[in-house]
Structure formats: C-alpha cells, structure tokens
C-alpha cells in the first residue's frame, strides 16, 4: 500500500518525517523502569502519552503494562505540574503501594519547565514518600533524541539515585543492560552463571514482561532488580555497559558517583560482538571461558560455515536502534552479506561515527540517522537499489510486502509476531537463531519463486 505513495526520486526534505523509524523518549523510560522490582512507572504529563506508551509496550510484549499518569489538564499546563505530581505520588503509594515510583517527564512537562528533582525532593520533605519507599526520576523530553535516549536517561536515573558506596568493594560485576528484550536479559544471566561470574544485572525486565500465566493479574510480577541490590551497585568491583548509547551513560554516572570503573561493549548480537562481550565478562570476573561456551560458539561458527554460500553477497536493508544496528551490521558483514541501506531515526554523533567505521567494509552503503531518516527514505532507497533481505521492526512489513523482499523482524516494536521476548536475540544462542531466521526467509523465498524445473528437495 505504501508502494504507490512512495516516489522513487529522493529529495531533501526540510522539516518532515514520513513513517518514522523511531519514537519518543518516555516509552524507553517506562520500559527501563519496569526492570526494577515493584516499580510503577509514572508519566508526568497528560493522559494521552501514557496511554500510547502503555499500548505500544502491551502490543510488543502481550503483557499488561502498568503506569500511572499525572493527568495534566489545562490548569497544570499553565501553572505547572507540581501539584499534580505531589498528589499523584500520594495517591500511588496509598493505593498501588509500589516499592518505587519512577517518574519520567513528557514533552509537555518539559516545555513548561517542571523540575522533577525539585518536586520529588519536595515530596520527600513533605513526608509524602513512606519510609523505605522511593521516588526516582528522569528527564525525557521527546523533542530530543528518541525512545532509546529515554531508556538511557532512566537507567542513569536509577543508577545515580540508588547507588551508594559503602567504601568497601564486593566481588560482583555490574552488567548495565542496554535496551534489549527480557529474553536477552535472561540470557545474560545465564551466560554469566555459566562463566561463573557474579553479576548484578540492571535493569532486568525478565520475569516482568514475560511473566507466566498464573490466573492472577500481578501488578508487580516477580522479576526486576530489587532496590537492595540496586543500592549495592556502587560497591561492585567494575561495570560492563552493554551498549554505548543505552547503557554507557549509566556506567559513566556510576563511575563518577561511586568510582566503579567500567568497560563498554557492543550489545552481543552476532559472533564478534558476543566474543567481545564474553571476553569482557571473563576478564572482569577473572575467570576462564568454560569449554561448554566455547562449544556453543563453535556450533554457531559451524552453521555459518555450512551455510556461507547462501549468505555471500546478499544485499540487506536494515533499520532500528543504534545499539542493535552497530553489532547487527557487523554480523551481516561477518556472514558475507552486504549491508546496503541503513536508517535509524535516532540521532547521535557517536553512533554515526561508529557506523562509518563499520561500514568501511561495505563500500557504497547508504546510511542516515536522525530526523528524516525514516521508513519513507528507506523505501525510496530500496526502490532505487533493490535488496535481498530486509531486517527491522514490524513497520518494515509494508515495504517487504510491496517490494516482495524476505523480511526478518528484529528490534522494537514488534507488534505482529511473538518470540522476540521469549528466545534470546543475543549471545551465541541468539545469533544462531538470527542466522536461522535469515536463512529461513531467504530459502522460503527461493522455494516460492523457483522455476518449476529448478524446484528441488535439497537446496
């Protein structure tokens, strides 16, 4: 359907985004906050934003997503939202009884200049925060950055506002999770335990957004990092930030506040990035990589070798979020594929620079990020130079259908499939799954389009 509305000629657009490849900050903050146990995210703004964010997360995870709102009206928008937030905090603690409220701002409260730090302090001074309970905050204006920025900001908020340093280090390693799926966070915990490294993972949305059916609607499902654990991250011996855009800012903040040295690695998507992650983890924990993990890696390499002819030279268009695009692009190159068109609505110099480095191996690739780097542009590029495969979130399906391109869903949001939150997308296991998915769609396409005489059992 987009087909006839997409012109082939690419023109510089001045102020217009068509079919965005990003969304706004608060949804990221809301997702990150759900990675704390007993946390109720709170949207400081009007009801609409909160409702949209909850709906989108609900569609992506097929799970109930709770969040409260300050319910701004015209009054609040003129006189400021302090009164709304103060009364919201009281209401929330008395009725929903969370361990912590994680407040994020919206465009609206940002523009009127509400100061979340000052308001939450006032709430505390006025005795509105019960003993042993907490209110944290993050500033998440949507006219800056994108949803991934909001995630990063909330993780910084939880680090800065919870971490304390007792002066005595323990033997744990913090793993600061960039924006990934509950399944990925589960995989990180599994990898660490197989390596024998004691970690503190945060945020951790596993067991929150992939909760089992119990016959109850649990307002605060069992998962998430507890506040007690979160407080100890200042005493950990080091941190690994998984993702330079969504996780590193928190690592920096923690180093500043509690002197916890950190290393940043790419999200472990694909072989090379997973290798680096495992090395970083084994180094930080002072352990050797066990044979079992080496074997798992070997199986991935084996499949990559077995199937190399199917990947080689295939052109790929991909879109998504920075922390995923960087290692994903690298992995495609490692598979012998050719990343051709890449867009990300998320702006950022560091991202741009790193992508340029990675794409040195892919001469002639188109890459654009920030405003106007949208799905419309992606479609135009594809029209001008067709590709063999498209990888990205659900919104890619329009292009895939119009252009009849094999399509692998990867990233956020995925509204029309399941799996992303249940099976890992990272690590050797996740990479193997990605390889399988790519092969699956390529071969399905080949089977579907093969000439009658060339249609064969063994491919």
């Amino acid at each position: 359907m987009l087909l006839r509305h997409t012109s082939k000629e690419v023109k510089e657009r001045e102020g217009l985004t068509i079919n965005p490849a990003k969304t706004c900050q608060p949804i990221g903050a809301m997702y990150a906050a759900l990675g704390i146990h007993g946390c109720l995210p709170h949207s400081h703004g009007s009801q609409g934003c909160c409702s949209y964010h909850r709906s989108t997360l609900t569609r992506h995870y097929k799970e109930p997503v709770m969040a409260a709102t300050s319910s701004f009206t015209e009054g609040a928008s003129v006189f400021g939202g302090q009164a709304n937030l103060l009364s919201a905090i009281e209401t929330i603690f008395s009725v929903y009884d969370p361990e912590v409220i994680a407040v994020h701002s919206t465009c609206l409260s940002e523009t009127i200049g509400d100061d979340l730090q000052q308001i939450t302090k006032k709430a505390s001074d006025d005795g509105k925060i019960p003993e042993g309970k907490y209110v944290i905050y993050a500033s998440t204006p949507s006219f800056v950055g994108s949803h991934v920025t909001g995630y990063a900001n909330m993780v910084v908020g939880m680090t800065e506002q919870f971490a304390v340093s007792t002066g005595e280090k323990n033997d744990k390693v913090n793993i600061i999770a960039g924006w990934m799926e509950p399944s990925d966070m589960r995989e990180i915990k599994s990898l660490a335990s197989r390596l024998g490294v004691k970690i503190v993972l945060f945020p951790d949305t596993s067991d929150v957004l992939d909760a089992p059916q119990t016959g109850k609607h649990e307002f605060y499902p069992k998962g998430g990092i507890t506040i007690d654990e979160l407080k100890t991250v200042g005493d950990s011996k080091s941190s690994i930030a998984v993702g330079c855009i969504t996780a590193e800012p928190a690592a920096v903040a923690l180093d500043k506040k509690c002197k916890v040295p950190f290393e940043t690695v790419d999200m472990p998507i694909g072989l090379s990035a997973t290798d680096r992650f495992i090395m970083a983890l084994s180094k930080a924990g002072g352990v050797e990589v066990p044979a079992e993990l080496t074997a798992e890696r070997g199986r991935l390499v084996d499949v990559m070798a077995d199937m190399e002819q199917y990947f080689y030279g295939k052109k790929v268009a991909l879109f998504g979020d920075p922390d995923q695009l960087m290692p994903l692009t690298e992995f495609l190159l490692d598979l012998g594929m050719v990343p051709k068109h890449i867009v990300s609505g998320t702006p950022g110099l560091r991202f741009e620079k790193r992508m340029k480095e990675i794409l040195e191996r892919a001469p002639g690739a188109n890459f654009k990020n920030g405003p106007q780097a949208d799905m419309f542009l992606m479609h135009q590029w594809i029209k001008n130079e067709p590709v063999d495969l498209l990888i990205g979130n659900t919104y890619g399906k329009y292009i895939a259908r119009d252009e009849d391109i094999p399509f692998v869903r990867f990233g956020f949001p995925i509204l029309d499939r399941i799996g992303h939150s249940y099976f890992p997308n990272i690590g050797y296991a996740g990479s193997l799954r990605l390889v399988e998915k790519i092969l699956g769609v390529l071969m399905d396409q080949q089977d579907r389009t093969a000439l009658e005489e060339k249609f064969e059992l063994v491919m």
Partner: protein
Amino acid sequence: MKGKEVMDTQNISLLEGRQKQVYEKTAGAPEGDIACEKTSLSGSVSQRACVFCGSRVVLYPVADAIHIVHGPIGCAAYTWDIRGAVSSGPELHRLSFSSDLQEMDVIYGGEKKLYKSLIELIDQYQPKAAFIYSTCIIGLIGDDIDAVCKKVAKEKGIPVLPVHSEGFKGTKKDGYKAACNALMKLIGQGSTEGISKYSINILGEFNLAGEAWIIREYYEKMGIQVVATMTGDGRIDDIRRSHGASLNVVQCSGSMTTLAKEMEEKYGIPYIRVSYFGFEDMSKSLYDVAQHFPERPDIMEKAKEIVRDEIKQYYPEMQKFKAALTGKKAAIYVGGAFKTFSLIKALRTVGMSVVLAGSQTGNKQDYKNLKEMCDEGTVIVDDSNPVELSKFILEKEADLLIGGVKERPIAFKLGVAFCDHNHERKIPLAGFIGMYYFAKEVYESVMSPVWQFAPRKGGVK
C-alpha cells in the same frame, strides 16, 4: 499490604476518590448518579487517552487527505496505522506524517517547519485536503497553526484544516468535537446535484475491518442513497456535499453527535442515533431509517426483507453458540457507553449475562440507562483502571472480558476469555454478519482448550 512481596490484585482497595465512579446494582443500593465526565485523578493508572487521540480516531479514515501531526515524533509514531480503517481507494491516511519537532523548534516555534512540510507534502501527493493536528506542545509554544493553514490553503487551493487537539485540553470527547469542527468546515462546500430525496449520511462509522461497507450495502439495498460515510472509507468530495442528504444516521459511539447537531442547525438535516451491533439493534437501525421516509413504503418492505433473510441465514449457527454460552458471564469495558448497551443486548441473545459494564467516556444519561438495563449484581464503572477491572472480573467470576488493547493481556493473565471490541479487531462486528462473527469469536475464546491449563483465580475457587 506492607512488606508483601507480590501485590496481587485481589487485595487492592478502590482508588480513593473513585468510589463515586463505581456502582454496584443491588437491591439496597443508593439512588444517586454515577460520577462521570471527570478528569482522571493524578496518579491513577487510567485506561484513557487524550484529545488528540479522539480527533485522530475520528478523522483518520478520511483516505484521500493527508494527516499531519504537528509536534514531536511520538504522537505521530503511536498513531501510525494502528486502526484497521480500510479504504476502497486511496490510502494516504495510512502514512504517518510528522513535523518531528526538535529542541530548537520548541524554542523558536514550529510554524516555518509546518509550512514547509505542508508544501512538500501537497506537492508530492496532490491530496484533496490536509488535516493538521496540533498536539500538546504546540498549544504550549503557541504556534499559530490557523494562520499557516490559511496561507497554505490559499497557495495550494485545497482545504487545509487545523485540528485543535492539544492533548491536555480535555478528554477524548473534546477531540471528537475538534474533529467535527474540522469536518464542518468542509461540509457545504460541494455541489448537491444528483442527491436523491431518499438519502442519508452515515456518521460515526470508521470502516474497521470493512464495517462501513456492510452497513452501506444494507441501506443501498433498501433504495437509499448514501451520500457520505463519515468518516469510514471517507472521501473529501463526499463530505463536502453531504449537506445535501435528507438524514444523518449517527452510529452509537456518539463521537459524531456534535456534527449531526451542527448539521441540523445549519442545514436543517435531522439525525437519528443507531447501533449496528447485534441483530436487535441492527434491525432497528434499518427500520428507523425506513420510517423516516413514510411516503415510500417499499423502503420499509425492503428493510424487513433484509432483516428476515439475514437472520435466517445466521440463526442456526447462532443457536449452536448459544447452547454453549448460556449461563456464562461477561465483563465489558469499552470506550463509549452507547456501545455497552448494544453489547449487553447482543450478549443476551447468545445467553450470556453481564456482570461488569464500564466505559471510559460515558455521561450521566448513559449511566442512568446502563443502570436500568443491567441485571441485579452488575458492577458499573466509569474511567476504570486495571486494578478495579481485575478485581471485579474475579469477584464476579466473569468468563469473558470485552475491551481493547490494554485490557487483552489482563484477561488472559486472569485465565478469562477475551474479545476485542476496540479498534484492533480484525473482523467486522457490525451488521448481521458482524453479530455472527462476534458470537463466533466469543464462543471460540470462551471454549478454547487453553483454559484447562490456565488456572483461573490463581487456582483457587
């Protein structure tokens, strides 16, 4: 509560200040009105949306116009093609256009950007009109979108309509009004030539999963001309000449009652409110329209014939569903209250009773009617939240929840069947065939074998 690891919904109290918005119909219950049309309490987990959401919903299906969301990216991103409002022709409405405001725009204003975007878009797509939605932030920074629209309309010679839908300026209902205001500016602009005396406009039907097509066909079979469907499968030219119709038929949701009233005032077109949901209401909506043209008894004859044929066609299957569903209990939580009435009636035809009935935006009269309609023991809620919903679903032992996106996983977590009666549904629920689909969907969900494995109420009876 304190110190408890897991807070389960069974033990949650009602939100303070919300007691008046919850009512249980019992013998001794006090008479008073249910409080409604209030803004939600700060700090509540409300299922409601905003003004922008309301106007976007109403105008979205106008398919040959461009819809540009003026504001930061989120508002546009979240409303990109999430409603299955289908079009038989152009599909411009399914694209997501945003002025994607950045920090500098917020400081210096976004008018220039909007102007440029509009020009770019109109040049590229040659749409019949453009709708410009102003979101929260635009209201704050004070962009004069009216002036921009005027200027562009003049330069490009098409209607460019501002939709004042700043999210914080009220509720979803105010968004309906804003949308109606924009439509009103189009109505009366086109020629009414060729419009029969026996003609109607269909209002408040959004063609979700093709519903407007079903309805339209019934009326056309009756010999009635449908001038415009507003806004499902909508076309600007039809809307512009819709003042030539003899009657406005407003779909239950009430989102377009404002428009019908205004058209009555300005053009003297009477309106009736109908519902297309359930055999009973669907039949009535055909008869009500036929009755409007008493000088043509053939129209009424035809209506009767349609009702007879259609019901005959679906009756046997419906009996099968009814046999299985009799005695089962349903909970309803939907946007508009009018929809709830139809749902209660429709559920009764398949033998189900309603134990919880609620809406996000009902008014006093709606709730009065609801109270009268409901059985003893039914809980009625206004602007509810997930906690209350779960609480009552469990207490009242519902077998089914009817709601929207955010309610779906709650039902499933509770081990209760679900039916989407919001914009995410993929099958039409309007018309006679729609009632059949509805009963089928409810039947399939309630009878799903998965409930054997999913403990209801955490396994305790």
